[in-house]
């Protein structure tokens, strides 16, 4: 490892962004950091409380409602939003859409962190979290869809780590390791596409086994396909949302990127998202037709269902098309956000609101569940920022050729 020629120590250069410790601390006294600190001051003791006292005192989970927001939001939404990694990987590596290159690394990092923190959320939810590796090493329930998910998420995490490695070694200036992982990354991406297809849909397939509990408008034999296709829309929208935020927050890192070009790419992503959203909408309608639940559309749950599919699938599909037609990047960004919210709504509907819809006792999260979820999201954002501030994610490292 060769160090930078300046008089800075390695720690100063790599960790403190070239500042002295005091300067670094001072630079961190910002509004966003104080909000994050505030959340974590509450969240971390709450997390400890969950582990010390157990799920009973800390959550509203019960025998009738065994899954709450840690599965519905942290796991199901977290994994869906992480789909950007495989969507961009497919576009760039497989379809050869080279102009999307600027999205690939951030998407892979978002993907990796998305999965990692989904697993973190899962650790809070599992009764015996320390047995998390059991399906891999101890006892194999091969008939279970959950078994598939466990393996795929573990393998996919490894894949995404490999994909992220070139950036780590560029940061550490380790040329050999970087070259090695750089070559490995393409293979990992392709393997990752396979894994993603399977477990994005598997997350939906979990609910195939609960026909008596999930409301018929959401329950469908097509639910694995719904989850997969909506994950593709989630991935694309998340790339738009995340990149436009990054371009604001990390302004100085993207100074080299032509804004007109960036906007054009955003719009073309919107075009793709529009097409996939329309596909998703068509599938949802086929789902209703397939189970012949038209008569349920005009019930309370039916209105809620239509609110979801009209307001968060069909509307964004048209808004994206509108934004593309009039080259309005603001509309595209807003629509991406709408789509992201729609995914949250869908996952929460499937896992919580439309689940056990006919049960006597309904679930709503306890404040501790909410605080822990917020804490996990905060940690994820901080981790993302920490990495982006140090590693070449948004830009090409000057010392390494970008021979993609």
């Amino acid at each position: 490892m060769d160090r930078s020629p300046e008089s800075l120590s390695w720690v100063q250069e790599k960790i403190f962004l070239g500042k002295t410790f005091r300067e670094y601390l001072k630079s961190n006294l910002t509004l966003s950091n104080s909000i994050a600190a505030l959340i974590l001051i509450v969240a971390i003791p709450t997390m400890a409380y969950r582990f010390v006292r157990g799920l009973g005192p800390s959550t509203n989970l019960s025998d009738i409602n065994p899954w709450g927001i840690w599965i519905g939001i942290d796991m199901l939404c977290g994994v869906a939003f992480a789909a950007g990694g495989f969507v961009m990987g497919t576009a760039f590596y497989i379809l050869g859409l080279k102009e999307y290159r600027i999205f690939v690394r951030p998407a892979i990092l978002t993907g990796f962190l998305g999965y990692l923190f989904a697993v973190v959320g899962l650790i809070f939810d599992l009764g015996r979290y320390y047995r998390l590796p059991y399906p891999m090493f101890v006892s194999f329930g091969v008939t279970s869809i959950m078994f598939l998910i466990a393996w795929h998420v573990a393998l996919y995490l490894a894949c995404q780590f490999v994909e992220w490695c070139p950036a780590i070694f560029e940061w550490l200036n380790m040329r050999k390791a970087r070259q090695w992982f750089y070559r490995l990354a393409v293979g990992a991406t392709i393997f990752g596409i396979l894994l993603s297809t399977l477990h994005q849909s598997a997350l939906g397939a979990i609910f195939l086994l609960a026909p008596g509990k999930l409301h018929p408008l959401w329950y469908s034999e097509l639910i694995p396909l719904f989850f997969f296709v909506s994950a593709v829309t989630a991935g694309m929208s998340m790339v738009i949302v995340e990149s436009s935020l990054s371009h604001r927050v990390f302004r100085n890192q993207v100074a080299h990127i032509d804004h007109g070009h960036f906007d054009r790419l955003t719009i073309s992503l919107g075009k793709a998202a529009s097409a996939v959203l329309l596909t998703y909408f068509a599938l949802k309608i086929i789902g209703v037709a397939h189970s012949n639940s038209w008569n349920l559309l005009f019930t309370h749950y039916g209105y809620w269902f239509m609110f979801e599919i009209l307001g968060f699938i069909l509307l964004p599909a048209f808004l994206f098309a509108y934004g593309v037609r009039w080259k309005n990047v603001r509309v595209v960004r807003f629509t991406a956000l709408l789509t992201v919210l729609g995914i949250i709504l869908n996952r929460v509907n499937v896992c919580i609101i439309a689940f056990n819809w006919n049960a006597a006792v309904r679930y709503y999260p306890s404040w501790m569940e909410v605080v822990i979820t917020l804490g996990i999201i905060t940690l994820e954002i901080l981790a993302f920022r920490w990495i982006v501030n140090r590693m070449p994610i948004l830009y090409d490292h000057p010392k390494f050729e970008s021979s993609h």
Partner: protein
Amino acid sequence: MLRKSKVRIAAMRMNRRKFLGRLAATGGAALLGRASQAIAIDNFPGYRDRYGVLVDTTLCIGCRRCEWACNEWNKLPNKPIKSFEDKTVFDTVRRTHAGTFTVVNRHIDSNDSKPVYVKKQCMHCEEPACVSACFVKAFRKTPEGAVVYDASVCVGCRYCMIVCPFDIPAFEYDEPLTPLVTKCTFCFDRISKEGGVPACVNICPVESLRFGRRADLIKLAHERIRNNPGKYINHVYGEHEVGGTSWLYLSAIPFDKIGLRTDLGRTIIPKLGKTFLTAVSVVLVSWPVLFTGLYVFSRMSSKSSRENMPSTKMKAGKDG
């Protein structure tokens, strides 16, 4: 005792008939060869001598001694047997919880406003959803018919509770480090021994519960319906529900009025995930080919477009 031995004899007769039928079927399968064997595997009718319990809700007096005996045998938190006579617990409809494997609920017959008492516990499905859903194989269907749980591998994901159509498995939420999923064991440690019956059946003072071979109990249930015209609903709950259950119910009023779901149908829940698991292998095999094809195609088209003109390609919708 007399009745019990009668049942046994009936069982033997039944078994022999079944055995002969099975022999004929096997012979046929042997002649037809492999293909029909595969079909036969899917139609495995269950272990021949598996047990069941027939619950005749018209006989139950709601004494809740079965609850007491269950707690006693399974070393669950218990109270003196006297306190189980307290009728106020019937004011709310209860379900199984950690430390409670079985509960008796009271439902009111709307015709004569008489109470109907219904015992609830694990149904010990023929095709258990929990067994197929568990990703560490913590559940197992034994040849005796019991669905038993192995705490030593359980991760506590509670997927079994999500998929159980009868909402039976419960979780020790207040246990921070080693929470278990809890449910009725069918007193596996009793019934797996010669002559053993579940603790609840053993204590039932009115023989509302009847333990025996499942096949015999189904026959007995239909006999009771036939021999008492107008008394029962002409249906043995559990004979076909979700592919059949070990515990079977007879009732004088519709089953959905006594807390048993009638919308479950005959759907075998583990089968619902099978199509997906089949599709997984299809994707596993075909995706690499498909994506390699796409890759080659995109290489070719980008080469040809480079030769034509330096244009920016627009990307069309990409979906699965």
